[in-house]
């Protein structure tokens, strides 16, 4: 499949502060790409560079086989949705939707037709005559999405569009955006720091930190096979449990303090070197409470019932460990338990490089 957006070795800096350095990214046609990372990782900067709202210090940006590096934002076939909605406060919803088309000098009939179509799609027909100040947050964001829709953009850019909404609305609009992508199948680039949005929406996620892409892959791969410690810790809530350990090749064990864990079932066990310092990572749901020859004995230190499931906190050799169990499970403080790890679902990282082995 051909590429819709190509980011070629771009750099960007504010004065002396370098935000992006030699970053490249290809986004396929019709793909839903999520840029995910903590604040300050450069994801919004990258999006603004793609939109042409910031001037690159180096590199090129291509959209639909067209070098747009120095083109005005309006000439890039893009539509953009902002966190703060960015609706023009002095215009009605209708005028907001049509502003871009009016700026281009589109014929009135065509404008009306397009507005009607977008309004139907987003169920904002009743709001057309209102001012933004008379709308709720969810309605505003619908209008903002509508404004991007009417432009017939080839690429949609979303800059944390749901961050200002409450949890319920967020879920609702997330669903809408997913449906929109299903129906329109445009290329979409979506910036967020919310991993649930990223996991649910993305075809591919690019996890960013310090202006660098840490991992670029499908949500599943990123969740199950995080490329490094940062990605492993950033994705998943509660986050992955980590144990510092040393590998013993002879019996294929890792040693955590006084405890030994058999990791012979780990997929890349052959790549681990004898005596290598590693970080053993296991997700809360991949820990079972059962007694077997490989299990570890410990005590329940805290129980967090969350409805659908229950989190049980314990510790292994001083490292806090969270275990995700069914909501119906019943544990009390100081219960003695035996836990075992699903080794084939675990991740092992090199302590120094922090890369997955």
């Amino acid at each position, binding site marked *: 499949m051909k590429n819709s957006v190509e980011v070629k070795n771009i750099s960007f800096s504010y004065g002396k502060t370098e935000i992006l350095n030699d970053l490249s990214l290809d986004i396929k046609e019709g793909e839903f790409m999520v840029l995910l990372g903590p604040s300050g990782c450069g994801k919004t900067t990258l999006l*603004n560079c793609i*939109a*042409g*709202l910031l001037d690159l210090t180096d590199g090129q940006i291509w959209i639909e086989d067209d070098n747009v590096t120095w083109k*005005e*934002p*309006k000439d890039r076939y*893009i*539509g*953009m949705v*902002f*966190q*703060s*909605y*960015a*609706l*023009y*406060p*002095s*215009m009605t919803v209708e005028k907001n939707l049509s*502003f*871009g088309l009016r*700026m*281009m000098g589109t014929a009135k009939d065509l404008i009306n037709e397009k507005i009607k179509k977008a309004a139907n799609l987003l169920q904002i027909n009743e709001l057309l005559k209102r001012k933004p100040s008379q709308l709720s947050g969810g309605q505003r964001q619908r209008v*903002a999405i509508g*404004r991007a829709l009417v*432009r017939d953009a080839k690429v949609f850019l979303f*800059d944390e569009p749901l961050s200002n909404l409450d949890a319920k609305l967020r879920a609702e609009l997330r669903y809408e955006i997913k449906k929109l992508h299903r129906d329109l199948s445009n290329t979409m680039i979506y910036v967020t720091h919310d991993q649930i949005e990223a996991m649910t929406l993305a075809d591919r996620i690019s996890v960013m930190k310090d202006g660098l892409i840490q991992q670029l892959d499908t949500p599943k791969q990123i969740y199950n096979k995080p490329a490094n410690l940062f990605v492993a810790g950033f994705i998943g809530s509660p986050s992955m449990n980590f144990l510092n350990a040393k590998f013993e090749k002879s019996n294929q064990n890792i040693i955590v303090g006084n405890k030994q864990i058999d990791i012979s079932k780990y997929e890349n066990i052959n790549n681990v070197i004898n005596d290598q310092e590693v970080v053993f990572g296991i997700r809360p749901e991949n820990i079972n409470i059962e007694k077997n020859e490989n299990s570890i004995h410990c005590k329940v230190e805290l129980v967090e019932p969350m409805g659908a499931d229950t989190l049980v906190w314990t510790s292994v050799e001083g490292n806090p460990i969270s275990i995700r169990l069914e909501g119906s499970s019943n544990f009390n403080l100081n219960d003695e338990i035996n836990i075992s790890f699903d080794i084939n679902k675990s991740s092992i990282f090199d302590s120094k490089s922090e890369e997955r082995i």
Partner: protein
Amino acid sequence: MSTIPKGPRPKHLTIGRIGLYCFIIMCALFFLMPLYVMIITSLKDMDEIRAANILNLPKELSFYAWPKAWSQACTGFVCEGLKPGFVNSVKITVPSVIVSVALSALNGYALAFWRFRGAYFFFGLCMFGAFIPYQVMVYPLLKIEDFLGIYSSLPGIILVHTIFGMPILTLIFRNFYASLPIDLFKAARIDGGNFIKIFFYVIIPMSTPITIVAVILQVTGIWNDFLLGLVFAGRDNQPMTVQLNNIVQVDYGVAEYNVDMSATILTSLVPLFVYFISGRWFVRGIAAGAIKG
């Protein structure tokens, strides 16, 4: 058993509270006294002014001074009162306010949204200009205007007011625009607006409050100006403040204090009117001009 308080909490007018009111009323009287004196003096005739207490209300209202101050009082050998000064002040203030506010709004917009290298250096330079004493600039500026052929003319004084109003106005517009969500500007750019279109369609419709503040600041500032009008306006365009000073500071003849006070009131009517109708906008203007953002 404890007693349960019933009804609203009893109100105490404590001694401190009374003292507070006494003090603030005294302050208010002090601040009002000159205005009071100004008004009653303008309503007395000269005999009463000479004979009676300056703080006493007039025994008989005399309206003789007002028309005289307006149209007959003498400055030197010309006895046309303040009227020409009023007309001149209007002729100076209206275009000066329009030009300076429009230019500064454009500056503030360009600075807040269209950042480019060096823009802020010049803005800093411009702000520095706000603090340079006029006395350092009047003579060279006079030479520049002379060179341009507009010294001692309406365009000359309008240009000067535009120049000296620019730093503070640009600052308040820039601060206002910088406080708008930048996303709005980004959205407008994606929607295809260019520099001018975004300014007219998106930014200006949102600028009403800050424009009111700027206009108030400029109207009072330019109306009250004395020095620049004196130097740059030329003999035929002298603003009201200059004429007022000329009328009051006559070296010969009998001083007519009631006429002087009428003239003084007349001169401050415009800014006072602006002040009283604009109320908290005026306050906002002061705060916006003073507090750097």
